[in-house]
């Protein structure tokens, strides 16, 4: 029997399979190498970087919720320079396409980082995280206002030829409007979803649990919201979609692809089962085999038929 073709094309980007890891859950690609060779993945996405180093939020930064977790890491990262000099050379050795997630607090932040990322390295694409507060506009997140979202993408687009992934925030009334905005801004690919804003309170101390009060909800709990958004965006926008939000098993991944995702990202599930991404790759192939598909790309969007 011919093996199932897992090759995945996302705009200019070609991956050996559609399974990648989500930003912020996979460090800079080194930790999970203790469990398996990261080059088996379609790609890895590294922790969001900012122009300057950031120390992030005080502890506690994570708390469990029913079938999910909240995180308020606060974009702790070594900053652009340190990333380029220390981390990028190490990433190069992993022999895996690397997606660099960039986060900023002004248009200049994004533009600066896009310009600084080399186009001839292991960096396969730039993922623009627009869930950050826009400091110049009163702290409203770029990702909740279509105009700001478009502007961020345009600013980034001007400064790099690398494929651009716009990562959308689910904390919006209308995800489709945002998707169209980033398409206009010049995104090649859309990834969704980032985390849902949530919080928990400690009933003993009677204070918010997280040092930052609020945090981002991820994990299986958010899966139905994420599938819905992928489904909606697939109907409205032509760009390929990277689906994420609660994916823990190959069945979850199939669900996202049927909804319209061309590839999937595994985030929180890494923490529970470090081998989840590999099991998902195998499971996707097996699902295709058992259902008579010769290439995994054939199942993308089938739920819309």
């Amino acid at each position, binding site marked *: 029997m011919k093996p199932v073709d897992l090759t995945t094309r996302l705009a200019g980007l070609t991956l050996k399979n559609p399974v990648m890891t989500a930003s912020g859950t996979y460090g800079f690609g080194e930790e999970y190498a203790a*469990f398996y060779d990261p080059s088996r993945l379609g790609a890895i996405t590294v922790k969001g970087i900012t122009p300057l180093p950031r120390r992030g939020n005080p502890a506690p*930064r994570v708390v469990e919720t029913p079938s*999910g977790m909240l*995180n308020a*890491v606060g974009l702790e990262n070594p900053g652009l320079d340190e990333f380029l000099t220390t981390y990028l050379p190490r990433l190069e050795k992993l022999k895996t396409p690397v997606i660099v997630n960039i986060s900023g607090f002004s248009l200049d932040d994004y533009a600066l980082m896009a310009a600084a990322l080399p186009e001839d390295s292991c960096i396969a694409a730039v993922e623009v995280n627009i869930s950050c507060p826009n400091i110049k506009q009163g702290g409203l997140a770029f990702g909740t206002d279509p105009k700001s979202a478009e502007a961020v993408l345009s600013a980034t687009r001007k400064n790099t030829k690398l494929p651009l992934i716009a990562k959308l925030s689910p904390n919006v009334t209308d995800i489709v409007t945002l998707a169209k905005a980033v398409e206009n801004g010049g995104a090649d690919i859309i990834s969704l979803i980032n985390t849902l804003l949530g919080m928990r309170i400690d009933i003993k101390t009677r204070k918010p649990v997280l*040092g930052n009060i609020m945090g981002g909800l991820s994990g299986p709990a958010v899966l139905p919201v994420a599938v819905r958004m992928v489904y909606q965006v697939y109907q409205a926008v032509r760009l390929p979609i990277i689906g994420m939000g609660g994916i823990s098993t190959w069945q979850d991944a199939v669900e996202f692809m049927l909804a319209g995702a061309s590839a999937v990202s595994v985030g929180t599930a*890494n*923490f*529970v089962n470090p081998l989840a991404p590999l099991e998902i790759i195998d499971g996707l192939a097996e699902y295709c085999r058992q259902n008579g598909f010769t290439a995994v790309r054939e199942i993308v969007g089938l739920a819309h038929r």
Partner: protein
Amino acid sequence: MLHRETVLENRSLGSAIYRLVLKGAVAATARPGQFVHVQVGTATDPLLRRPFSIAGIDRPKGEVTIYYRVTGRGTALLTRVRAGETLSVIGPVGKGFTVPAAGELLLVAGGIGLFPLLALLAAVDRLAVRVKVLWGGENRRFLEDVGRATLFQMGVDYAVATVDGSMGHPGLVTDLLQAALAPETAAGQQAESAPSGGQAGALVKSPEGRTAITVAACGPKGMLQAVAACCGRAGVPVEVSLEERMACGIGACLGCACLVRTAEGTPVRRRVCKDGPVFDGREVVWDETG
């Protein structure tokens, strides 16, 4: 680093404390102060793994022992696992304690903070290193349930303090530490105030000529801070084992942040799971807002 370990024992010791003995690959490389990150359920709730310190390492038999307190849903679920079943375990994880080769080692424990120190106690060569355990708890009942017998069996010098005074020194374990580090003054008073049932007498054994005292401590954050301060004043090196809420447990998510001061005094982030959980007590920035 991801293993299925077989449960050999999982039973209650009283005071909601359980002993869990695991057989498998972890023991081969485990060191005192490291921990295991255990999947407690199979469904998506509770979702995350739970970290537990390695309290005993039997390398020849391939066994590690952990002690856990039932505090919430995850540990409650863990009590349901039976001998013969397997658990998914990430480990051993983290940077453990320095095992001194000579001198004197003071193990300072608060409550269930005793557990990781037991592994260190077992690892240190007690012919070469003089070891004392200082242990504080709520009350006698807790200390009896949790492991006073173990300390006794291990034949180690120890002193205890209880908040309610039902055993040993009535007060905090840091009182005992202070006494041990400055025997001429406080310790004398300590010994007098120790009730007859206590072991505080061990403290007043002649401390002369001690050159290389080191301290290893584990317990609640407030206690560790006091221990670090106390050691700082006495100029004694101290390692503390920190706890923080964890997600990945292996350094990938930055969920378990703490702050330490570099040699130059710059505060920098460290991951409790990967860069710790054991840190040099003098480096730790205890209060981030301060």
